[in-house]
């Protein structure tokens, strides 16, 4: 039974179905995305503790934030962490992906799977506890290995000893960076897929032109996978600025020692859900939003000359 509908009516019918199908997203947008974004902006101009109605205070939260030493400290901690963790993560995962992509490497599937395991649980409570134990200054295996290799009676007796990691304010951020590096398997897989997409003909051509391994990397590999690098760079940056769980677990939710693990989002959480300063915390959230937006725009701008797209003007969203 085929009913021939007039074209317009059919299009209207299709549009109706479209709205029906996306209706859950519309409800979610209003209740859990768009609505809260506006509400959060409004709350940032109030004093609010959930129990009493919000009390408008104008720009006071913004002024107070700019005079808050711990806020600056948290910016520094998260900024430093991002600055170290993101580039290091890219270098390590790209190097490993290139090794995996070598012709003739056996058990590719097995390597891929096993390297990915840490990424599965990265950022979880269990991993934070694990690294606390590995990096324990007195009983941890890492410091034991350091003393074995470069300690006074070590293999190469340099008399060095391991740092106090999470207990030394200067070593706290590097310790978290180490923890994040352990989960490099995720971006390694993405790079591997990108590398496998580079046409072998390009390498052949470069070889015929007499390009060595390094030149081939610089002039073929790097440009071809630069969009993937940009993608992991931006998502990595955003993710690093939002790190919470490891900092909360390792510092027992207080951000010590000497605020050295007071990451941005940890301080935000403490202001909101421990001190019930929801207005002030909303201000912090908006600051974070703006920071991420600016960093993303800078990254996109800076990459315009460095990133190579095979077909200019296609439908790439970023």
């Amino acid at each position: 039974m085929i009913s021939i509908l007039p074209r317009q009516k059919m299009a209207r019918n299709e549009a109706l179905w479209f709205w029906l199908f996306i209706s859950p997203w519309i409800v979610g947008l209003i209740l859990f995305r768009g609505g809260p974004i506006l509400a959060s902006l409004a709350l940032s101009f109030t004093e609010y503790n959930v129990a009493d109605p919000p009390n408008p205070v104008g720009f006071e939260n913004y002024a107070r934030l700019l005079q808050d030493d711990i806020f600056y400290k948290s910016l520094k901690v998260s900024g430093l962490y991002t600055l170290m963790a993101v580039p290091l993560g890219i270098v390590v995962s790209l190097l490993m992906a290139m090794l995996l992509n070598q012709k003739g490497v056996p058990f590719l599937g097995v390597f891929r799977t096993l390297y990915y395991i840490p990424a599965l649980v990265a950022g979880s409570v269990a991993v934070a506890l694990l690294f606390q134990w590995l990096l324990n200054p007195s009983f941890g295996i890492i410091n034991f290995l350091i003393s074995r290799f470069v300690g006074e009676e070590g293999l190469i007796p340099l008399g060095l000893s391991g740092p106090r990691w999470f207990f030394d304010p200067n070593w706290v951020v590097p310790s978290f960076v180490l923890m994040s590096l352990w989960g490099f398997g995720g971006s390694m897989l993405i790079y591997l897929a990108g590398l496998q997409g580079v046409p072998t003909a390009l390498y052949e051509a470069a070889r015929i032109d007499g390009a060595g391994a390094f030149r081939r990397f610089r002039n073929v590999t790097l440009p071809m996978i630069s969009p993937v690098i940009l993608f992991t760079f931006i998502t990595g940056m955003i993710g690093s600025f939002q790190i919470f769980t490891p900092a909360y677990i390792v510092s027992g939710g207080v951000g010590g020692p000497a605020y050295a693990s007071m990451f941005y989002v940890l301080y935000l959480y403490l202001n909101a859900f421990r001190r019930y300063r929801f207005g002030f915390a909303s201000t912090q959230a908006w600051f974070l939003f703006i920071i991420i937006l600016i960093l993303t725009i800078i990254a996109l701008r800076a990459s315009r000359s460095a990133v190579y797209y095979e077909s200019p003007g296609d439908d790439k969203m970023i």
Partner: protein
Amino acid sequence: MAGIATAILVLGLTVVLFPLFWMLSTSLKGEIEALKIPPNWIPKSFQWVNYRDALTHNPFGTYFRNTFYFAGMVVIGEVLSNSFIAYGFARLRAPGRNVLFIMVLATLMVPAEVTIIPTYVLFANIPGQWLNTYNPLIVPAWLGSAYLIFLLRQFYLGIPYEYDESARLEGASRFGIWWRIILPLSKPALGAVAIMSFIFHWNTFQGPLIYINDNAKFPVSLGLSMFRTPFGGTPQHWYMAASLAVIAPCIVVFFIAQRYFIQGIVVSGVKG
């Protein structure tokens, strides 16, 4: 060249897997042996009893049950809702569709921290007792997530339109096409979504920390974080036993379904 690469890869793998080995090793030692320097690489005798002690000292059975309920409900919600929404965006034409899809992508840019406080305020104020339940964490999952809508839409764009056309000629409704044709055809993509979603929510911490206060309702992540006892901490061998027990389901699920999983990671990363 391949030989050197393989050697480095094997060495790298030892480094990467060592922390997990050490977790297992510590979890099977006695309390004093766990702190011994120089350490025993392999425990003198395997203290399997640590697992029983660590997991019964706090009610981990309850935590596991809670987490299966929470992650399960979220996975069902995310698979159904996102495939439903993505079908609309991928295969139905309507004025304004592209603008709306750009809005989907725009919400990806908004950090969760911006919405977390108003969402909490919303759940604290609506009628019925929503705080200290999993509903604030489950209900939003049934209303679509931008990332998964994007991922599934890309997949649906690749399914030939002839399937829809012939089903329509046989009188199937749009809903029927989604349910009987698109869903079965997209099993690999939905598998990837389900596994990624399960593993993510199994480990998630911040949401439960904000909403769940009652020890009997804790998921494993909160249970593990509260393991710390006030009288001078928990012994390391217990910590490691409980931690390993908590991440074990993730690793098992990953090995069972890793083909789907790796596909999902690669698709979302490269096409992103």
